[in-house]
């Protein structure tokens, strides 16, 4: 399929570009792991609600939330950042002249960031085992389904950010702001039940709420397979709506830029 061919080709280019800067990958692993160590100590202080009686329960909860967010963040922000980089470097206009659908370009912009963040998350996950992290119950098919659906949804969000970059030269900041709100209301760092009721209502509009709920249940709790159905169906619904909408928005942004003659403007 041409979309896979294009995504892999652009990811390979981004990989080659990334390794031409040698220290970036190691720094990212260290930073991510160091960030989690703090939560190992915070975990000792959290002895309430679902975390009562287990000094590493909150640490496990936070590891799943933060590592999952660290995978999705480059997918969403990476797309608009890559679009902006292409714009500033001067390659965006040439890419737009290539025989490829614009949505494929959008998806390709986040591919290497996703690949890198998944590798880093896997390494950091292994590093957290000696300090207390463990998967108590693993439902691998659900984990894979949640990850794939979430990537599709956040790639769509990234495409909308890229569309803003192409149309008005801004986007990454807006996506980053949206992600920080989504992260707070979706239970990345603490249970949604701790939020005020109006924010809890808002959290039901965030796909990350359902993704984290399913992911934690599929890794840290012994749940029957049927208990994931609602979360997975909601994620499928989000994916079916957001991807076509983002493809349309991205295509429109290119048309706006073509009309204004701003594809080479930054």
């Amino acid at each position: 399929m041409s979309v896979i061919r294009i995504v892999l080709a652009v990811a390979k280019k981004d990989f080659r570009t990334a390794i031409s800067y040698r220290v970036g990958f190691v720094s990212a692993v260290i930073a991510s792991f160091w960030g989690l160590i703090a939560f190992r100590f915070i975990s000792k202080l959290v002895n309430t609600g679902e975390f009562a009686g287990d000094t590493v329960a909150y640490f496990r909860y936070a590891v799943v939330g933060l590592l999952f967010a660290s995978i999705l963040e480059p997918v969403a922000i990476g797309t608009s950042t890559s679009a902006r980089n292409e714009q500033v470097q001067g390659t965006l206009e040439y890419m737009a002249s290539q025989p490829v659908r614009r949505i494929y370009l959008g998806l390709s912009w986040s591919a290497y960031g996703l690949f890198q963040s998944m590798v880093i998350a896997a390494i950091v996950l292994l590093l957290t085992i000696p300090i207390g992290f463990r998967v108590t119950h693993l439902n691998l098919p659900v984990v894979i389904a949640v990850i794939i659906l979430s990537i599709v949804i956040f790639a769509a969000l990234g495409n909308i950010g890229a569309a803003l970059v192409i149309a008005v030269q801004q986007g990454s900041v807006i996506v980053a702001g949206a992600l920080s709100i989504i992260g707070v209301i979706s239970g990345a760092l603490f249970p949604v039940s701790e939020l005020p009721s109006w924010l809890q209502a808002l959290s039901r509009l965030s796909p990350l709420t359902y993704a984290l709920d399913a992911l934690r249940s599929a890794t840290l709790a012994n749940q029957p397979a049927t208990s994931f159905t609602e979360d997975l169906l909601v994620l499928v619904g989000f994916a079916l709506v957001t991807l076509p909408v983002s493809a349309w928005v991205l295509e429109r942004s290119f048309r706006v830029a073509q009309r204004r003659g701003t594809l080479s403007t930054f």
Partner: protein
Amino acid sequence: MLLPVRLGSAYLFEVMTSARDRRRGNGSAIGIDVRGVSKSLRGRQILQDVNFAVPRGTIAVIEGDNGAGKTTLVRVLATVVSPDSGTALVNGFDVSRQGLDVRRSIGVSFANERSLYWRINAFQNLELFGKIAGLRKSVIAERSASLIDELHLGRVATGQVARMSTGQRQRLMVARALLSDPKVILLDEPFRGLDEEGLQTLIELVTTRARDGKTVLIVAPLIAAVTSVADRTYRIEAGSVLPMPAGPAVRPVPELP
């Protein structure tokens, strides 16, 4: 009784042949057909009722001063700038309504050398754009090696593009434009930064492509060496394209309809 069947068959044939033609181009003798194209950007009229045509298998040169509208014209034909009015057909496809088909038909070199990826090397740049164009790996390898050799880039092709000179990057951009063996070749100021040898190499390369039936459009400031091999020469002034006296044609030029 048979009439509806015949009408149905005719309709089906029409639909099938038009779909085939959409993929291949319309089969006309014209590679580039621009009629009444105008474009204004940020309140300034850049192109004003532009009309010209380039038959297949010929080289057309449009020369003009800086700011005359040359680059905007190439951008319109490459579908990265849309015209305000008029129609532009490239390989029979309308740039406004059949952008993807146009982009499948063209190889383009913009004047901007930053359109290359500078942190990777020449072969890696060609590999990327070859894959985007849908070429097989073996075809990319073969054509890349051939183009790198033809354009005398072998010595620098495995180093980062950032370390190349402007003229070398210019040649690499032309190599990239030719990689997919496009039916229509659009070159915006391809001679910038080239020495005499590089200029001759490039002229030979595009002349060969035109002999093979490709349509070549070059926009550049006036360069005698280029206009001497052009089948049609135009001048762009204040956004309008005007025909210039013909240079010595290198082969018979098909008549325009």
